């Protein structure tokens, strides 16, 4: 499957999951869909039949509330049956609203923001000390970057030259309650990471070729931060850039329109 199609499939599943479960954060999942699609379809070494194979590349979704996008990608790659997606949040079920370990293909439970990068840095440190070639990817939100722990991890990773670590900032400029600009503005997002010792690439976070190039890139010495400029709710026109879709799940006409848009494939 070409990555554009894989990303569209993820979005279609995300809409279906949010519709059925009533769980929110659809905007965040749609924002990260292309990043996750490129990683799982092209860049990362994955082993769906043997999820914990030590040669796999590691992936942490630090913005754990975008779990629907990750779970859709994992089911799409065959880590677990697709039917599980549509039972997210069901009593006694397998998938919760935030990423949880124990689900085949997940490395780390996340949900409390700002904590994923440190764990990724620990993995990268261990792998590097053992001479391994596996890469570690961590996806963060821009609102999440207000957590101080992100910068503890950023400084640590830069100082220790964790060149096997890539952080992706899903920079959609919108957080739960407001535009980032009105809460904590990120005019210098790239510069902040650069000053912590990272090699920074800024890309259109919905351009598959641009993401492919950035996520495949490895710096010889420094960890790489991909600042991916994205649109929250991307792929469903009436959700794009609308903060209400951080909390809502599509029902009725909204659901029908979202499905129609995605099935028409005009993203």
């Amino acid at each position, binding site marked *: 499957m070409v990555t554009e199609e894989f990303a569209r499939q993820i979005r279609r599943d995300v809409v279906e999951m949010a519709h059925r479960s009533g769980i929110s954060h659809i905007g965040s999942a749609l924002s990260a869909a292309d990043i996750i699609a490129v990683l799982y379809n092209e860049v990362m070494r994955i082993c769906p039949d043997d999820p914990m194979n030590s040669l796999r590349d590691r992936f942490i979704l630090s913005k754990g509330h975008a779990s629907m996008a990750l779970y859709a990608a994992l089911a799409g790659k065959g880590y677990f049956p697709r039917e599980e997606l549509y039972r997210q949040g069901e009593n006694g079920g397998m998938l919760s609203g935030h990423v949880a*370990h124990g689900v085949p293909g997940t*490395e*780390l*439970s*996340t*949900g*409390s923001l700002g*904590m994923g*990068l*440190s*764990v*990724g*840095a*620990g*993995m*990268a*440190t*261990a*792998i590097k*000390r*053992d001479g391994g070639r596996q890469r570690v990817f961590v996806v963060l939100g821009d609102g999440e970057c207000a957590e*101080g*722990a992100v910068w*503890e*991890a950023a*400084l*640590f990773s830069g100082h220790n030259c964790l060149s096997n670590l890539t952080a992706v900032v899903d920079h959609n400029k919108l957080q739960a309650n407001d535009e980032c600009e009105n809460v904590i503005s990120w005019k210098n997002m790239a510069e902040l990471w650069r000053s912590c010792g990272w090699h920074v690439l800024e890309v259109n976070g919905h351009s598959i070729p641009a993401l492919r190039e950035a996520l495949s890139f490895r710096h010889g010495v420094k960890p790489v931060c991909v600042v991916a400029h994205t649109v929250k709710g991307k792929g469903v026109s009436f959700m794009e850039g609308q903060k209400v879709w951080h909390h809502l799940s599509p029902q009725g006409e909204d659901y029908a329109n979202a499905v129609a848009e995605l099935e028409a494939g005009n993203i």
Partner: protein
Amino acid sequence: MKKTFFQTLYGMAGENPDLVFIKGDTAYIPDFQKQYPGQYLDVGIAEQNMIGVAAGMALEGKLPVTYSIVNFATMRCLEQIRDDIAYHNLNVKIVSCGQGLDYGTLGATHHATEDLAIMRAMPNMTVFCPCDPIETAAVMEAAMGLKSPCFIRNGHGGEKNLHKGPVRRLEVGKALPLVEGSDIVLCATGSIAGDAYKAAEELRGKGYDAGLYSFPTVKPVDRAFLFERMDTARLIVSVEEHSIIGGLGSAIAEVMAEAGPHKALFKRVGIRDTFTDEIGSREYLKHYYGIDAEGIAAAVLEALRQDKKDTE
């Protein structure tokens, strides 16, 4: 205890190449760094990252031992301990330094008075608080035998041994006798057991049959010991350099309260729900807050007086 901890760690690092010592700009140990550079990591003053990095390394099969002063080792990074370490049940040993009022003159920010309560509430976590250097070595060995998260609360240094000889194999969750006695049973955790020891001696001098038992494991607490003693003793007293809320005293109270009718009365000795902002040395502060030998003995005698009054 601190010296014993590092000596023990040194030996363990040599035996286990997966052991990684991760510190947050605490503990200057250039010899360790020189001998085991691949097993040493200083993350700087960044405890949240310290725990996250430890979790990542544990997920990759390493055996991280994190280290800082008690409050920084636990509270600053509490959610990382909860979500990354405890929730994932990772084999990380969270070692800390400075029991209770150990840091005396440095002030209340450095006094550890809630850590046992907080760490005890954490699922999957085993909580250790050794009373002397002998127990520190035994606790380290016991903790390494567990493949799950452990919190170890060591003293800052200079503690005298209370055990007469080495503790050969410390059983997790078992109390150890320091002074045998059956009528008044003092249950202490940490080096405050030294004060409880003096209190037991004083009580014995007054003709009371007082015993002292060390609880190097605060969680799980020794239920079997308590079940046995609550039917035979007249008074059980918990002694800890910690708030009376949530620590050893609470652990014992929980067991006794649910145990049904029993003979023994129960009394908690500890810091009484206050910040320890009085200024002074550890010895001065222990006295001020009523947890030194004198305070412990007085609490015991008061409980006995109260008991007598109630029965009259």
